[in-house]
């Protein structure tokens, strides 16, 4: 056994101490990130919340592991290669999920249907009871639940049987931090009144709060266009006007 010199012993102890500290920091960061995600996604279904926070925690641990390996002076190349391969495998495995998630963002705008609509996709017909990041759920009259992956809605021809789907305009309204939400909503409604003649007057504007986080509050404005062919044009113009209005409210001093 080769006796260690004092400087070498000191270096090893220091390195082990560093590894221990890094493990502690990683554990703390993983726990903190997981806790923040749980709080931010408190409105999401518990299972989704749990999966996302767990995924984030694993990611933090992987990053921490890389730093620890580096600290120990070991070769990182093999580990990075393994992680890269695992990443590619995960992406290939999750390509369908990613496709569904990206399709989700087209539903409601380019694929006009919302929760509550009666729709038919292939031979499946039912009321849309949920549109989640992966799939849309249709409840049939008999009580059967059909799960339609969101990407299928891009590939298949679907029918929206709700009478007003072709004329519905849904506009997200981001109320900036510091702007009073009831005041902003009143101004949005007053703005809609100016477009009254372009809208179906049997259906007055409906505003609901979609997200009230720490920063800005997101409202959703739903209107019906008087003419289906003018729907997008009207949505674009109203959307722009509302953005201008919110900016004006943000910069104007509170009464």
């Amino acid at each position: 056994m080769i006796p260690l010199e004092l400087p070498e012993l000191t270096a090893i102890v220091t390195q082990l101490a560093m590894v221990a500290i890094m493990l502690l920091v990683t554990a703390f960061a993983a726990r903190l990130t997981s806790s923040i995600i749980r709080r931010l996604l408190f409105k999401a279904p518990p299972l989704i919340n749990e999966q996302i926070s767990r995924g984030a925690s694993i990611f933090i641990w992987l990053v921490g592991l890389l730093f620890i390996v580096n600290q120990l002076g070991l070769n990182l190349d093999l580990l990075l290669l393994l992680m890269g391969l695992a990443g590619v495998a995960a992406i290939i495995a999750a390509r369908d999920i990613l496709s569904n998630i990206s399709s989700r963002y087209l539903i409601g705008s380019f694929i006009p249907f919302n929760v509550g609509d009666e729709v038919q996709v292939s031979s499946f017909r039912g009321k849309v009871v949920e549109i989640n990041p992966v799939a849309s759920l249709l409840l049939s009259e008999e009580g059967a639940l059909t799960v339609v992956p969101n990407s299928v809605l891009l590939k298949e021809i679907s029918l929206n049987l709700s009478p007003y789907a072709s004329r519905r305009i849904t506009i997200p309204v981001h109320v900036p931090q510091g702007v009073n939400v009831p005041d902003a909503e009143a101004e949005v409604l007053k703005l809609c009144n100016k477009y009254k003649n372009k809208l179906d007057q049997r259906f007055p504007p409906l505003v609901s709060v979609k997200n009230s986080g720490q920063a800005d509050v997101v409202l959703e404005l739903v209107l019906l266009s008087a003419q289906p062919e003018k729907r997008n044009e009207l949505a674009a113009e109203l959307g722009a006007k509302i953005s201008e209005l919110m900016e004006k409210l943000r910069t104007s001093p509170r009464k």
Partner: protein
Amino acid sequence: MVYPLIMRLVRDKVLNEGHWLSLNPYGPRQATLGPVRLYFVKLEAEALKSYGTAKEEMWKLLHGVHGEQPFSLLELAWTDEYAYYNQYNRICSETALALDRELDFDLFYIHDFQQLPMGEMMGTLKPKLFRWHIPFNERAIPPEWSGFLGRFLNAYDAVVVSSKSYMETLLRRGYEGRAFYVYPYIDASQYGTPTKSDLQQFADKHGLDKDDRVISIVARLDPLKGHDRALKALANVVKTHEVKLLIVGNGSFSSSGRGLGLSKGEAWRNYLQTLVKNLGLEKYVIFTGHVSQKELECVYTLSDFTVLPSVAEGFGLVVVESWLYGKPVIVSKAAGIAELIIDSVNGYLVEPDDVPSLADKMKTLLENPSLTEEMGRNGRETAKLCTLEKGLEEEKRIIEEVVG
């Protein structure tokens, strides 16, 4: 109605405490009243005025009152005034949700059409009960409004109206949830017997003689109460009968100059006073203005019978008050309480615009004191359907059913 309900639920240990949110532009932010914590919602002057205008207009529309221009609830919803009605409801909803985060409520009990959008706005899955106090008449609420009203009403777990017929209309006008009806109620123990000296004092104050036959209308000074119909009928009655008509009441606070800045009550009083003059009824009609509880007891005791000639009326608790004193009533068919009137048994029913029929019924009661007395006795029995005890038991049952 809300305060006795909370007190009863606290007494019966159904509730630990009540938190009551309401509009009060002039009061403090909060106040405590026994087990009830009050939170007052404020609106800025411009918003308050516009909210008041929208609320008044909505109230008229829901009562089936239209001006010269036909106007609909859907048209109202496209006005800037309605934007402030919406704003008021959003403020109330946000306040209620903030309080819920702090206090973890078991139930939201929302009262009347002013707050209708709250259930939809709050979006919480906690039990939400809505009490519709005004009429829900088929005549006033056309099928075209079903979608608009339905989207708000269906956000509640249950809706309570004031009569069976209103409940039936509610279910025909887009509401798909649980519906109940509870007759409005009064605390009979609060209505005492006035002393001879109180009666004399009241008679002296208003120039009533000992032998005067007296008819009274106890109602807020508001065109919807139909005082003008009673005056026109009286003009016919006084041709053959010596009788005095007491018009008891003032305008409501919210429609006064101090409230929402709308002087509807004052304008209606001026109109009625002119009408009295034009019909030559000065010596037959007495406007008492607002009366105290003791004076109200004198009104009923001194009256032979009472009249509720309303054009539209959510229910008409004054009829129950009259019955408590054994006095029959002539009631417009437009009042919610009309479904409790058994014609010629505990009162008479008349069409709101049928002035000759109203005059005939007045004459019949004046000419038949024994019939009047018998109908009054029968009315006293009917009044038991609208007692505080019965009403609160019903409310309690509904609340327990909704909360689960």
